[in-house]
């Protein structure tokens, strides 16, 4: 036990003695070899964190949240803002008509949209063209727009050559043979197009695009093929070079561009837009017109199928889906009815009810009925034959009546019907149709009762007719007995009738008598009773 205690005491004492030294050593070691420690601990940290997360997930989350949360929210906000901005610009660029046009144009022309965008934003113009001897940098020819004269073109040519030489040499180290293509400065650029012994420096204002390069290339190719030899042989004397021809050729570059500009000017966007707008407008008006026609048909149809309104002249006009009603109606109720009937029509946007209520205006149906009743009443007199048409304003009455007086009365009667605005008549005065046969006994001239009744009837007809008509009496014979005897009998019979009419009716009509030694037409010859008669008719006096 003692040994054991001693052992414990010793190790405790040793621990106490060593502790300050060891601690100090550890501290020192930490200070001196932080890097070494870091590399040693590093692999452990990963494992430690993993373990910690697995066992103390919530603690880790709580510890990291204030840092990570803010960081994440900041990052997400920023990303969202950026995305929004991107979307905005894309929408702005993508949805404008200009952009759509550009897209179509790009597809049609087969060039990139970006290039067209550049083209839109800048009008490229070739300002100057320099033809430069490749090696010496001597300016061989120069054309320029009068407004953009170059300052010291010789210097520019030499300097360009120096720059070109430098760049080309520098690039050549790469192993590939490449050339300086263009130099940009501000909104301008110098396009360089080189051949064996010379090169073109084309100064372009604004961004150049595919067409510009194409043109430059074409012109320079022509130039080299025509005058390449002369340029190659250039020794310093510019007179040995066909300068005029070269300048003329180069001038086409400037012209080309001007023409392009003019062409652009010619087709002003408005000029393209105008016909399109016109066509659109035309189609639109056709469409609305079609709609209006449809609506108009429906309106008319509805009006025609509303019994109360059929008789009135209502003016319904559809224009731009707006219905305007006008006309006269007798009652407020009808006005409202019209509107109510039509407002259910689909597609009609509004109804302008300009119908005026005219209380004095009678119901045309009633007017019509009144006319009909009136005329029906007149037809008790079988000699009155009248027809009428009434279009709700004008009454046209046609037919015949037996006397002027009756006509006058009828017209006066019609005038009393309210609502007829205009009265037109084509009434003729015609003799009533009279077709009376008076029969006599054999060898007698006496008027029997039946005949007298017929004559009384005739008198009343004559009384209600114009007295200017002529009464025509025709005496027929039974051809029994002598002709002379028959004629005497006929004369007496005629006289008897005339006397009867005068006596009973005091008629004023002219009487024309005729004695015919024949049977009454169409009678049976074996029945002389039927032929022994006097025929009475009424004729209009012939104006001779």
């Amino acid at each position: 036990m003692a040994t054991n205690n001693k052992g414990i005491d010793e190790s405790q004492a040793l621990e106490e003695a060593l502790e300050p030294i060891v601690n100090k050593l550890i501290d020192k070691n930490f200070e001196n070899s932080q890097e070494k420690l870091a590399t040693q601990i590093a692999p452990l940290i990963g494992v430690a964190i993993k373990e910690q997360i697995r066992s103390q997930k919530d603690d880790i989350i709580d510890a990291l949240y204030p840092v990570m949360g803010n960081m994440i929210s900041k990052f997400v906000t920023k990303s969202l803002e950026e995305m929004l901005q991107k979307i905005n610009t894309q929408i702005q660029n993508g949805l404008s008509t200009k952009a759509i046009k550009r897209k179509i144009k790009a597809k049609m022309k087969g060039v990139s949209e970006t290039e067209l965008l550049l083209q839109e934003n800048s009008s490229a113009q070739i300002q100057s063209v320099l033809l430069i001897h490749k090696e010496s940098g001597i300016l061989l020819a120069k054309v320029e727009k009068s407004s953009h004269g170059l300052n010291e073109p010789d210097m520019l040519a030499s300097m360009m050559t120096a720059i070109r030489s430098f760049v080309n040499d520098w690039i050549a180290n790469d192993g590939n043979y490449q050339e300086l293509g263009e130099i940009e400065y501000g909104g301008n650029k110098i396009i360089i197009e080189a051949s064996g012994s010379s090169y073109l420096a084309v100064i372009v204002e604004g961004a150049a695009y595919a067409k510009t390069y194409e043109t430059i290339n074409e012109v320079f190719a022509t130039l080299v093929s025509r005058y390449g030899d002369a340029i190659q042989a250039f020794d310093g004397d510019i007179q040995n070079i066909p300068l005029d021809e070269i300048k003329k050729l180069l001038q086409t570059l400037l012209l080309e561009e001007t023409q392009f500009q003019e062409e652009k000017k010619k087709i002003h966007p408005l000029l393209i837009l105008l016909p399109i707008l016109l066509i659109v407008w035309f189609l639109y008006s056709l469409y609305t017109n079609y709609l209006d026609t449809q609506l108009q048909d429906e309106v008319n149809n509805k009006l025609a199928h509303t019994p109360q309104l059929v008789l009135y002249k209502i003016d319904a006009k559809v224009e731009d889906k707006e219905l305007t009603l006008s006309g006269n109606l007798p009652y407020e109720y009808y006005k409202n009815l019209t509107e109510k009937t039509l407002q259910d029509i689909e597609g009609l946007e509004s109804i302008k009810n300009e119908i005026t209520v005219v209380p004095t205006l009678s119901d045309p149906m009633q007017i019509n009925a009144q006319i009909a009743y009136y005329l029906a009443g007149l037809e008790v007199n079988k000699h009155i034959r009248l027809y009428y048409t009434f279009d709700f304003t004008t009454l046209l009455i046609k037919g015949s009546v037996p006397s002027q007086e009756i006509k006058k009365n009828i017209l006066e009667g019609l005038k009393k019907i309210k609502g007829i605005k205009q009265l037109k008549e084509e009434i003729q005065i015609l003799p009533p149709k009279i077709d009376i046969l008076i029969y006599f006994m054999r060898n007698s001239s006496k008027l029997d009762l039946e005949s007298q009744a017929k004559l009384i009837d005739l008198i009343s007809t004559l009384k209600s007719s114009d007295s200017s008509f002529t009464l025509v009496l025709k005496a027929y014979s039974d051809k029994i007995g002598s002709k002379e005897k028959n004629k005497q009998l006929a004369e007496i019979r005629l006289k008897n009738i005339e006397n009867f009419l005068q006596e009973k009716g005091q008629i004023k009509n002219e009487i024309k008598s005729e004695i015919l030694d024949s049977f009454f037409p169409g009678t049976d010859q074996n029945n002389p009773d039927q032929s022994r008669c006097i025929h009475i008719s009424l004729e209009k006096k012939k104006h001779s």
Partner: protein
Amino acid sequence: MISYKIVLVGNFGVGKTSLIRRFVENSFSEDYLSTIGVSISKKTLQNATIMIWDIEGHTEYKPIFKQYLLGAKGFILVADLLRETTIQELQNHLALCNEVIQDAPVCIALNKSDCPHNFNEEQVKELFELSKNIVAIEKTSAKEGTQVESLFLQLNKTITESLS
């Protein structure tokens, strides 16, 4: 109208730019500005337009950029009378020029003649031996204008005569 290119070749600081300035503008500046890359001047004479290329001076570490010599009708090699090495380098420059443009006429300007020096005529003659292309050798002073114009004009004469 004749138009051609000449190039001034020489070590840095020999006074190429000053010579050109004297010839073109008839002026001089004491300030030294090292030419970077190339600077180009134009001189219009009665019978010709000269494009004068002033290229970056040659140093030990930076050889002359051959491309700049292309297409030249003549060269002016410049050396500094006060710096022996620049004169010695003339031989290399001559070789380079002949390599790029065979048999192009060359004038040599021994510059800074206004300063005291001990380069004698014998040595000038020796220089002539370096190449058959040498047209003239002059001791020039860009500062005072001595022999500058005449050197340029001699080269011009040779070139224009060869062209016509």
